[in-house]
């Protein structure tokens, strides 16, 4: 195969080069002259960055020349971007951090809300990146259970960031203390297991509260993080349930800045509902580069995430570990839904809501094949505590030996799998 000729792009000041790369191709990007940044992280000159299955926006404040090797499915230069307002937002937040440091108070706690596909995650990344560039140590809270930018879909996570966000990996793939090439982050993850908060609102708010409690406790001790503040990425739910969750979130995390992205009505509502002393509500335009991600793309992203969890990226490969486990050594649990009895079968007076957080055991069977299970850190099955226990990681069921009552699982690292309680969600993955 011959390498395609590198393509040269000249960008003027405050232009953005938007490229989309398919999952099965690899594209190398190199900044030749000038400055450029990808989601807030500055690119080094003459360093090759490799991407696959990503949609990237390379923005330049000063103008630059970029070389791209490989085929992109989409590539164009845009000269209208909301970057200026994003940067101003950062500066405004940074000023609050300065004041917070001086007065030993808490830094800004920002929540980004908006519908799906307006670039909430990209904006969080940018704001966090900017903060990191100024030696801050913010905490990134990801409440978007459908995406799982830090660990896996279905999780609510909080991650303290101290190193630069890797341009190639995003902050996705490290999430460990393993010595990978990228920055190592240690997220705190709680398992929700559904794509939308609507699927089990009670569980979602339970976990949200727990996550907020842990983050607040950490912030009490962690001075650098306290003054740097937090950035919360939410999921795109903006109906009545979504509003409830937003309100809960504001309270739980003591949010003082709400950024509404690309949605006028939501902005109006947020202003009306939450703008009071101490809480600022601002609206930002969505970037033209944000594209709607269809289900296929989301699905592929998800697969890529799972793959990366076990095998790492091409730049930093990881070695997962396959191990065989007896059925009786583990206990597979599931929350609510799948096990819900029809309402007519409920005892009289029993409230349906109760079973939303009901934990049921799942007998291991062929059904588990190709499932991604979350390993709980819990040691004992005590309800409802076990629901609120954070995760140790994930395993993938690669084989079922039903006759021998054993299953083969892929574990991220060598050794015994630390805990026996595993959550079953809806996540499946076909390992290639």
């Amino acid at each position, binding site marked *: 195969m011959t390498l395609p000729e590198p393509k040269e792009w000249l960008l003027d000041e405050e232009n953005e080069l938007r490229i989309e790369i398919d999952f099965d191709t690899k594209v190398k990007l190199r*900044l030749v002259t000038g400055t450029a940044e990808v989601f807030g992280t*500055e690119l*080094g*000159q003459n*360093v090759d960055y490799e991407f696959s299955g990503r949609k990237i926006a390379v923005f330049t404040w000063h103008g630059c020349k970029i070389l791209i090797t490989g085929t992109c499915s989409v590539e164009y230069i845009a000269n209208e971007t909301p970057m*200026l*307002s994003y*940067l*101003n937002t950062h*500066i*405004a937040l940074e000023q609050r951090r*300065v004041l917070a*440091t001086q007065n030993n108070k808490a830094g800004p706690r920002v929540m980004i809300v908006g519908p799906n596909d307006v670039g909430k995650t990209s904006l969080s990344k940018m704001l966090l990146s900017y903060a990191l*560039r*100024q*030696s801050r*140590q913010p905490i990134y809270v990801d409440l978007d259970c459908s995406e799982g930018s830090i*660990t896996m879909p279905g999780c609510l996570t909080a991650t303290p960031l101290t*190193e*630069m966000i890797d341009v190639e990996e995003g902050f996705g793939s490290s999430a*460990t*203390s*393993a*010595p*990978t*090439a990228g*920055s*190592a*982050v*240690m*997220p705190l*993850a709680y398992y929700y297991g559904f794509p939308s908060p609507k699927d089990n609102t009670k569980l979602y708010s339970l976990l949200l509260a727990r996550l907020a409690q*842990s983050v607040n*406790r950490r912030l009490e*001790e*962690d*001075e*650098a993080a306290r003054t740097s503040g937090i950035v919360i990425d939410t999921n795109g739910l903006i109906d009545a349930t979504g509003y409830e969750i937003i309100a809960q979130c504001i309270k739980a995390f003591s949010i003082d800045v709400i950024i509404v992205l690309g949605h006028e009505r939501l902005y109006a509502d947020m202003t009306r509902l939450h703008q009071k002393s101490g809480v*600022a509500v*601002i609206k*930002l335009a969505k970037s033209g580069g944000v594209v709607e991600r269809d289900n296929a793309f989301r699905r592929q992203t998800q697969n890529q995430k799972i793959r990366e969890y*076990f095998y790492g990226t091409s730049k*930093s*490969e*990881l*070695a*997962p*570990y396959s191990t065989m486990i007896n059925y009786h050594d583990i206990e597979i649990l599931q929350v609510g839904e799948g096990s819900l009895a029809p309402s007519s079968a409920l005892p009289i007076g029993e409230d349906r809501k109760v079973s939303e957080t009901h934990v049921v055991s799942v007998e291991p069977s062929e059904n588990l094949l190709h499932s991604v299970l979350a*390993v709980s*850190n819990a040691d004992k099955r005590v309800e409802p505590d076990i629901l609120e226990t*954070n*995760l*140790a*990681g994930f395993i993938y069921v690669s084989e079922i030996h039903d006759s021998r009552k054993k299953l083969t699982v892929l574990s*991220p*690292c*060598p*050794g*015994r799998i*630390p805990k026996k309680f595993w959550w079953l969600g809806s996540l499946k993955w076909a390992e290639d």
Partner: protein
Amino acid sequence: MYQQQYQHQPAQQRQQQQHGGGGAGAGGGGQNREPVDPFQARQLYRNELATLTFNSKPIITSLTISAGENASVSKVIVQTIEERLRTAPANQKLPTLYLIDSILKNVGGPYLNLFARTIVTLFLDAYAVVDTSAKASFEKVLGTWPNWTSQLFPKELISKIEQGVRSMRQQKQGSHQPSSSHGKPHHPDRSREDPYSQNANNMHGSNGSQNRPTPPPAPVESSGDNGLLKDIQLLMLQKQHAMIMNPADQASAKQVGILQQLESLVKTTQLTPESSNIIRQQLAQLWTPAPAPPVLPVFPQGGMPTVSSPMPPNMIPGSMPPLQPPQPPTMPLPPNMPFPPPHFPPQFQPGSIPNPHMMGAPLPMPIPPAGIPMPGGLPMPIPPRSMPIPPRSMPIPPRSMPMPMPPMPIPSMPNAPTPPTLPGAPAANLFASLMQSGLLGPNGALANLNRNPQPPMMGGTPPPPMPIPLPLVSAPGPALAPPTLDRADQSEQDRSVMSLGMIELSSQDIQRRRPAAIQVMYGTPPLQCNQCGYRCPKSADAQKKMDSHLDWHFRQNRRMKDKAKKSHSRSWLVGEEDWIHSREGDLSQSQQPVFFDFASGVNKTSKDEQALQEEIAAMKERIVSEATLAQGLCGNDPGATANVSTLIAKGCSICKEKFIKVWNEAEEEWSYKNAVVVDKMVRIELDYLVRSTARQAAAAAAAVATAAAESMSASSSALPSTLPTGFELTTTAQMDIKDEDMKEDINPELKVEGDQQSQALGQDTKDHVMTLAAAAGTTDSDLPTSLKRKLEIDNVEESESASKKSILSRDS
């Protein structure tokens, strides 16, 4: 006492440890004396404990001290240790037992009862799984318990353990084969364990009585200060080690001086608990400092009025104003500084607290750990009590001058009536900071001399202004430097952010164009990493930050390279509590959290150890040409080359192993594998590296001994008899060292020629340490920088090395 000190030799590891984890130092150094957060204590202790994967005296010592300092959370610590002993791989249990033993014997107190509750099962469970040689060591440890000076455990308990051991041994006799003897890697085994385990045998041998810590000879009025005194002495020993190891280390030299004063201060006065706490805190801070970079604080332009030396010489003899760090009004210091430490003695001027960070928050801003210039001169708020030693009574020779016979202040006799003189120059710095903190009076004597009639000469007349040479190190008033830098750095960045004018968080204001905002992100003049585009915010210590950033790259790249050799995996996430109480530095860089230990069933050795082993293996392949050896052995004296080959043929002077002679094709000459010339002896390099620790220990012990026996002449032949008794039981290899090296060290005739060589040698050793550390650096965040810094200083000070030789031979 000396045995005990020896036993507690704290060393490098500790420093590395503390560099590693930002806040992690707190636990080790016991910085927070006030209510210790049990979670945090557990976290810190566990992290440190996780490094105890092999027999390492320094780590054990450090952990013992930590345990002693954190007696308030003894329960947590005991739990942590028990957990460790239970979960550690079989080949790592022995060191943990040694730790328990060490805590029992040296700390005692609450630990006795706490361990007593579980010791029987704890001991026997561990005993059951360790291999035969470790079993023997277990038994030896056990053997020392019944007859210890104080009762460690009730007799029943010990006899229970003994019974258990006996029955297990009988079972074993049937199937004599030790089932679980882990094939320990040959080299690390030899290298790491020999010195200690022999030593340990010594420590724990049946005639352990020799090693009992005898109470310090000093008249101790208040038993409460005992611990403090011990701390001081330990610290002093550490500094002396540092000095001996690195003759150019002026920082340690002056710290030793100060510590001596402190020691006698503590001995002769009744300290209030509060003041001893303060001393402790200061001591804790002194533990860390590796000789720091002599960096003049570069203040941001306009931020700082040019202060050529923040500590003008006349400050010292002159009347003592509540010296404040020269803070320019423009420095945006927090208006309401939250830091006047509440526990300060009233004598303190709040203004004299040089640095808010230093006293206050347990977790200061993330200062790039390696970059802090901390030439030891932390202001030591010693409660102004009496001090028998008038500090500056002699003219100070310029530092670059080879101090002819600087009366090295090695432990003065507790009540020495004559004020020993100090090498003023090195100490001046520390003194200055003492004075700065308001502790020392204008004359450099302690502020309130009322209690002690000793130093009459310090009375009224201030001595003439001291000519402070103000060499690089002491110039910036280092005590002030770190905070100021940090603050300045912060403010420089903050200033540019704030100079844009407050941006209102409103949808309108957010849209306005502010060209300067871009400037904030892309600061002028750019200091940018060429590997990734990371840009250092313009600030005083930008270079340092960049250094540590590049170090990070270095480690990452190294890992990438290692990829082929060993695979990496994603690890499990930590529990909630650990997440809350840990900091990123601890988790991601300094070491694997203990949490992951359960996963270590497969790879039993820790990452550090692996790296170390690889490095050692790599080093093994080093070959050294005959010519180089000859040069090393004989210097430039051509006449002496004749017997070189016979010398080499004799093999290693330590282990007598013969050298492997190989033909080096590239250089076309005969070479020897792993040979190294050390003090005119040719050795197997590994031996040398490994023994050098022992050697330093020996040297330090000897130094202490020499000093203690001041009346004795320091002729080299007399030396061995002045060694502490416990010391005589060291290995033959160590005796070797002692006999050969030590004599050489102490014999003044050899001094001159030895000097140059040891200098080169020192450099050599440092390089090795560097590589070793770099290897370990895969798990330690900031080592490379700190070491580089250290090397820099060493180079700077090379010329003025008032070497260990002169120090040691001062009496002759």
